[in-house]
């Protein structure tokens, strides 16, 4: 379960270009729930994800994961509980290290790192098996340095790395936006399979309205640093792409009510 309570973040405070990124934002995601976050550029989507992961320090407000206050925790401590796939395939992997070494790093995300050998035969076999689920042939390239993989392969690897170990919270930050349509589709299908199989609590940011319609239990629309609209349940099941796009331009009564 993820909870954000009255999160507030102002950039360049007191200067001419002061910008309120998060304006008393409240959000609650139940355990096992898949939330899809949409919103125009500058709505606060990235700031929200960064506040959850710890990369952004809030001015006021709290972030709770499964009831524990993680607001004061640095990024590397929160990583024990959450995993994140970035938009940029370069960001989520260590380019100069091999596929197996990257898998190892993710494997150790929530464990104590010891002075024992990292890549042992047991681990290598399990990485091979997990990567073969993608059907991209990565299981035969464990010793290849990640910089030699294509963007799609790298992003698929990032995904497998993130969902391994069943994190308490999975953050997907426009993770298919930098990929071609076919690869984006492969990565998205793999995402859905993993999220459903492991029943992961997931928060996905996307600009792809079709994805927002097709996937997830709830659509959360951000605007000016707060949640403007939430669509869940039967309403979510019935929504179409034009409906969603409509919400971007027209501020309906319901949107004001929701705020």
């Amino acid at each position, binding site marked *: 379960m993820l909870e954000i309570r009255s999160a507030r973040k102002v950039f360049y405070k007191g200067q001419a270009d002061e910008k309120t990124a998060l304006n008393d934002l409240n959000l609650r995601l139940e355990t096992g729930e898949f939330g899809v976050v949409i919103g125009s550029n500058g709505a606060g989507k990235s700031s929200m994800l960064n506040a959850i992961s710890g990369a952004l320090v809030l001015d006021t407000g709290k972030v709770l994961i499964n009831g524990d206050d993680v607001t004061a925790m640095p990024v590397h401590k929160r990583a024990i509980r959450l995993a994140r796939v970035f938009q940029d395939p370069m960001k989520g*992997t260590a380019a100069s290290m091999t596929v197996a070494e990257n898998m190892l790093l993710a494997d150790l995300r929530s464990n104590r790192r010891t002075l024992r050998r990292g890549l042992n035969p047991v681990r290598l076999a399990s990485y091979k098996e997990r990567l073969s689920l993608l059907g991209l042939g990565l299981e035969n390239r464990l010793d290849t340095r990640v910089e030699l993989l294509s963007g799609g392969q790298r992003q698929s690897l990032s995904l497998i790395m993130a969902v391994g170990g069943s994190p308490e919270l999975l953050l997907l930050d426009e993770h298919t936006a930098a990929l071609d349509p076919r690869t984006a589709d492969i990565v998205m299908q793999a995402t859905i399979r993993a999220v459903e199989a492991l029943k992961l609590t997931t928060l996905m940011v996307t600009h792809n309205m079709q994805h927002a319609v097709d996937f997830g239990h709830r659509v959360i629309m951000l605007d000016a640093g707060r949640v403007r609209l939430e669509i869940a349940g039967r309403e979510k099941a019935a929504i179409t792409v034009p409906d969603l796009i409509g919400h971007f331009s027209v501020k309906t009564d319901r949107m004001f009510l929701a705020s």
Partner: protein
Amino acid sequence: MDFLQNTLASFIALVPVTLAQSLILAFVVLGIMIPFRMLSFPDLTSEGAFPLGGCVCGVLMAAGMAPLPAILIALIAGFVAGCCTAFIHLRFRIHTLLAGILMMTMLYSINLRIMGRSNLSVFGSTTVFDWVPFLQPGFPASKIVMAGTIGLLVFVLLLYFFRTEKGTAVRAVGANPDMAEAQGINVWLATIGGVGLAGAFSAVGGALMVQSQGFADVNMGLGILINGLAALMIGEAIVGKQSVPRQLAAPFVGAIVYYQLVSFCLAAGMPPPDLKLATGLFVLAMLALPSLKRSRGPAAARETVRE
């Protein structure tokens, strides 16, 4: 023909001495390689940590301490110096190179304070090189055996470490600090520890050098960094840097080849004062090579370093 013969003769006569020297200086090259390649943290601390190790070891030996504890205390001093550089960079967001320059400048005064004067003779004190059995103490062979053995031990230990869970995490910090942090790795701890370790190796190099040459000098670090870089470049050109074993072997191979090369140049009659210019030009050429190649064909990947 006579010139060639003379050059070769004096070069060959110098091979053992040079080999002993290069095996000792390999520790400094290692201290340059670890931050630069493993942590993407170009570090200049070694220019100060090398004489720091030498001065600490010299003072302790002059005070009658046994050679091994003197080296160990020098190692700790170097470790602290490296940690300081990393901390200055991380805490105050000062560029790694500037942090290194600050540290080595401050270390110069500290080294002078430690010794109380600019040089100190420890001639006649027992050194680790005296412990080599069956060889005459003071002869280059004992230095080659001792420095070589310590070097081999360090190489094996580092090779093991960088393949452990902790070691892989340290390498991840160099490869992609943001990703490492997102995978739960404490970037501060890994950086401070890694650069500290490098400082420790540089200081050990200084301590061994003092025991080998019989005196400590506050200026003994002058230019050591550029020599070390040149050695590293040569080593990487010979054994490569694509895997951990190769990257770790490069400083040792590079140091051995580089100092033989220098010795050859000197034997061929190059005036010693020109040595730094020649070394600098060589490093420049090695660093410029990728960009010269790039003017034709696709752009080569740039070295990624932290700023």
